[in-house]
């Protein structure tokens, strides 16, 4: 495969080790380019990778830009976070990876908890399909334009979103455990 240049044959096993906890110059350049086109609500160096926060309306175009213009060909992961403070929000974090430049970039977006909906990335990355289903399953975040947004790991009849902070570790709907006997 020569289309990426980097992926030729066997690579030498001795790369220049990346500087610990310091973003690569490439990703810094990409972030500054993004900052000139979009309004970045937050920009943070997370142990050597840039994490940027964008507004929900910019989210899809930022990721699309990163994929087509900056060649972040890999969507490593996508997950939700429920922040309680300072105000309750649901966040979606997309982990993007530029393989040849060894740069990771985290794009996050904060959504209101009463109407958490965001554009789906499935049209950009096929891998986003199950990741978004998982995020929907655990946080109840609606991904607009997702081809098949149903629960994936939990059972379909479930009505709660278990990774939200308000949901207790032990299922509060269970009635087979008596607190007096188990000392809870």
């Amino acid at each position: 495969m020569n289309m990426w240049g980097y992926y030729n044959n066997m690579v030498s096993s001795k790369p220049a080790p990346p500087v610990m906890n310091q973003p690569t110059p490439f990703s810094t350049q990409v972030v500054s380019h993004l900052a000139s086109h979009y309004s970045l609500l937050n920009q943070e160096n997370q142990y050597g990778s840039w994490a940027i926060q964008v507004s929900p309306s910019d989210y899809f175009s930022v990721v699309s830009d990163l994929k087509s213009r900056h060649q972040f060909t890999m969507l490593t992961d996508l997950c939700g976070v429920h922040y309680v403070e300072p105000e309750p929000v649901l966040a979606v974090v997309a982990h993007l990876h530029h393989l040849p430049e060894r740069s990771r970039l985290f794009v996050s977006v904060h959504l209101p908890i009463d109407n958490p909906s965001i554009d789906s990335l499935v049209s950009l990355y096929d891998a986003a399909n199950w990741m978004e289903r998982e995020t929907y399953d655990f946080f109840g975040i609606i991904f607009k334009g997702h081809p098949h947004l149903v629960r994936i790991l939990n059972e379909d009849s479930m009505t709660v979103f278990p990774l939200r902070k308000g949901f207790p570790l032990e299922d509060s709907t269970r009635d087979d455990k008596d607190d007096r006997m188990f000392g809870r």
Partner: protein
Amino acid sequence: MTPDKKTVTVNLGPTHPATHGVFQNIIELDGERIVEAESTVGYIHRAFEKLSEHRPFYQITPITDRLNYCSSPINNIGWHLTVERLLGVQTNRRIDYMRIIIMELARIADHIVCNGILGVDSGAFSGFLYVFQQRESIYEIYEEICGSRLTTNIGRIGGFERDFSDVAIAKLRHFLEEFPKVLSEFEALFDRNRIFMDRTIGVGALSAERALAYGFTGPNLRATGVDYDCRVAEPYSSYTDFEFDIPIGQNGDTYDRYLVRNQEMWQSLSLIRQALDALPSDDYHVHVPEFYLPPKAQVATVMEALIYHFKVVMGEIPVPKGTVYSAVEGANGELGYYLISDGGRSPYRLHFRRPCFIYYQAFPEMVKGALLSDAVMTMSSLNLIAGELDA
């Protein structure tokens, strides 16, 4: 079923022996050709991410055991590396080399399972039996190092709970001597076996572009020709000190995945040998008393040890606030830990990037148009571990 329906629906799984775990595949068959496939997962979901939000950091290690249980030491050490990165702890060379030895052993054990079972699924049982004897030797080495075999809970945050014993080193040396013979024998059985080649070449092939789009990592991605390996791209645990190659395939089919795994075993062997020969003498753990249970004898006599013992067990330890993503090269792909710490006793949020959860969604595309028996081979060669997939 409507009378004019031409296709037959077949449920492959969730308890079919060929699925090696609880996966359900609803397959639409036209004769023996697969027209459509749909995968259902989640049968052994155990809410690890929710559990992790309620446990102190060191108690999360046993949870990671149960992700990819064929190579749990990699998961354990991956988690320790994540916490060490959050804390800013630098481990010494001896710890790094010990970790490399154990992680590469785990990689061999995992690949033995995957390739051995691939043989079984194609009807060749003997190769599987030969290599499984060696897997037993690896488990004996684990047992010597940490006391357990499958769910190892090996090591601690900041190093190891005890040093390698002389018996462990002797068993390692013995393994390094014995395994190459068995692996050569295994390769002689399969590599140029006409039946095996006919069953695997061109089966379940995926192009590099599609594999990247689906977020493939590990041997499955490398079989398509993309040489991405966390050990090289983002070296951790002093992997830069050693000489090793990243084997890649060309066609991304079942045969290439098999070959890549076999080659990786040779590389792992060479890594273990290099690390064992260069093993420096130093402490087997760094000074992180907040995460490291003091020796039991000291707890009874030294006050500081008792205090730390209490603090470690109760998890009353200040940790930095921050968000860290740390990835290791698991046996079946990039295993990532996305950890958000708010300074509390347990993670605010911990997300596991499970490689096979992400690449299993490509399965319907990989088997479309293939024969039903090819679907079994494809699934087997993907190295799917239900425990990891469902988390």
